[in-house]
């Protein structure tokens, strides 16, 4: 006797209970605190803030904890919360030339105003597992800079003085900066929306695409003109005040790639730009973003579009990991109605195939 499967509600309830149990793990191990995640898994928190497009370290830490360390799930949690937040206004563009710099390197000049600052980087560490970290060993305080920080102009500004690099792009007259979270995307895009999409895009996806440009799929001769990490002030213009209101500071990573020059009979050659800007500290993401940005400017720069990284619809439509994971994972949902339709057709066609075969056989006999 057949009884139809029931009890979806109870199954979901029980599954969620089990999930909560697994999330907590062994109860004899102390629960991890949000402050611990913010302080000690800071780069995970940064990635969740960057791809979740919400600058709030504590919420990002909560998301990391709730997601059991699954980064894309944590990003999703933050996004779904962000989307419900009201908009009070739009801040002024942040001024990265005024950044309180913690790290700043240029691969294009040995020395330059403001100097090279290594900062807190994994670079030049030897990737040897450190058994001491398994224990809570005391950590020395870092040395602090004593002298006042000297002015640190951006490398692209230095290059721009004598026209060696193209100017920062301008938006077409009268256009307003777009926001893909408020308006549906309409291809082809302007660079503002592309950069927004890339800033929210999946680090791994952009990394792979960026790598492909280095291997000849839309080669752009990139130089890491400058990478800077530090804090900038966020300012809001308020109608009643004649000066902008400072809301606070956020940590950013900015990458300016200096790329393949272009020129024509009318215009002397100059280098072109690729730009990356990410919440928190993420050089990998900002560099990948800058390489992808440059590749996606192919149309604007009159280059042949031959590679995946140059294909705007392809890159932007598939860079969002919340969208990608949803649709890939939706294959878990029941599809038995559709599968039944396919089963029916294949059975019918197999039946017809058999009939034909036997008819041919009969005719031959």
């Amino acid at each position, binding site marked *: *006797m*057949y*009884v*139809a*499967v*029931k*009890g*979806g*509600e109870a*199954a*979901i309830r029980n599954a969620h209970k089990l999930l909560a149990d697994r999330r907590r793990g062994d109860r004899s191990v102390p629960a991890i605190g949000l402050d611990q995640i913010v302080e000690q898994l800071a780069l995970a928190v940064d990635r969740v803030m960057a791809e979740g497009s919400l600058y*709030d370290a*504590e*919420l990002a830490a909560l998301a990391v904890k709730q997601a059991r360390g699954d980064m894309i799930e944590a990003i*999703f949690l933050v*996004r*779904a*919360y*962000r*989307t*419900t937040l*009201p908009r009070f206004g739009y801040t002024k563009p942040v001024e990265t030339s005024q950044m309180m710099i913690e790290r700043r390197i240029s691969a294009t000049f040995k020395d330059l105003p403001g100097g090279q600052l290594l900062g807190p980087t994994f670079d030049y560490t030897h990737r040897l597992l450190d058994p001491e970290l398994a224990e809570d060993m005391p950590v020395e305080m870092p040395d602090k800079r004593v002298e006042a920080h000297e002015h640190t102009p951006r490398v692209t500004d230095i290059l721009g003085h004598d026209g060696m690099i193209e100017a920062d792009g301008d938006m077409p007259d009268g256009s307003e900066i777009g926001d893909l*979270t*408020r*308006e*549906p*995307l*309409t*291809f*082809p895009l302007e660079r503002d929306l592309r950069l927004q999409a890339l800033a929210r895009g999946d680090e791994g996806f952009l990394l792979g695409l960026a790598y492909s440009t280095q291997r000849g799929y839309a080669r752009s001769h990139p130089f890491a003109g400058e990478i800077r990490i530090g804090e900038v002030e966020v300012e809001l213009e308020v109608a009643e005040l004649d000066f902008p209101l400072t809301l606070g500071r956020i940590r950013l990573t900015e990458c300016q790639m200096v790329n393949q020059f272009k020129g024509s009979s009318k215009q002397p050659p100059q280098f072109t730009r690729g730009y990356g800007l990410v919440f928190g500290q993420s050089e990998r993401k900002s560099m990948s973003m800058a390489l992808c940005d440059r590749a996606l400017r192919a149309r604007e720069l009159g280059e042949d579009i031959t590679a995946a990284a140059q294909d705007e*619809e392809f890159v932007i*439509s598939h860079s969002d990991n*919340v*969208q990608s*994971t*949803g*649709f*890939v*994972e*939706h294959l878990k*949902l*029941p*599809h*038995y*109605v*559709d599968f*039944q*339709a*396919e*089963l*029916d*057709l294949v059975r*019918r*066609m197999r039946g*017809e195939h058999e009939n034909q075969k036997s008819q041919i056989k009969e005719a031959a006999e």
Partner: protein
Amino acid sequence: MTELATYNFAYLDEQTKRMIRRAILKAIAIPGYQVPFASREMPMPYGWGTGGVQVTAAIIGPNDTLKVIDQGADDTTNAVSIRAFFQKVANVPVTTKTTEATIIQTRHRIPETALQAGQTLVYQVPIPEPLRFLEPRETETRKMHALEEYGLMHVKLYEDIARHGHIATTYAYPVKVEGRYVMDPSPTPKFDNPKMHNSPALQLFGAGREKRIYAIPPYTQVVSLDFEDHPFEVQTFSQPCALCAAKGSYLDEVILDDKGGSMFVCSDTDFCEERQAAGHRGHLSPAQAEAAE
């Protein structure tokens, strides 16, 4: 710490609802045309009904009664989850009975019971563009719709016939709405296509990830694409439902053992239960088995 989040009636903020509502009115005015809208992240994943959920959230009010089905059933996990979501954020009455619902959100089926005037059917749509698998670029497919250039679709269907002797599309079977737009009916089996034609109910389609809303107003012509020598036809089943003996309803195959044993039962659980309650018995229905004992 950020204060515990509080959410608006039906979850979406009013500005988002207005944006979706404006898109819905345009969609109704241009039947079958996909209106772009600024789809939001929802608290369930893209691909799991976010488009349908946003449409339902934008239209639902305290006077509504909501039914949610997935694969025709009210008790599949995703249907349960979406129904629970609306109970929580909109506190509306819910039902499993097709006839009692004012709004029915569905994935992959149209109820067997004929819909009535005043009802709204909200489809969850994964890929709204019927031409997408022929041409992956939005910029191109948009031009094709603008120029009413649907030859490629007919070529594809005809290639099927040449290769398989049949049109090999069994679900998400394209339709032409009011003689103008070729439209994806969402992945419903083609069995359900005729129900879309001249339906007294309003049909709304929401694709969250792809950010499109489209509609079929009541009493609108919806024609499945076909050829004179290969007219459109729906699936038929060789046996009635094993539980309610319904003929002409869409059946799911339920595997009973690993020796090829299976039975066929209505995919529309409400339809099947209503029939059983009215005394209809299939050859494997529990009541039949009791009677035989």
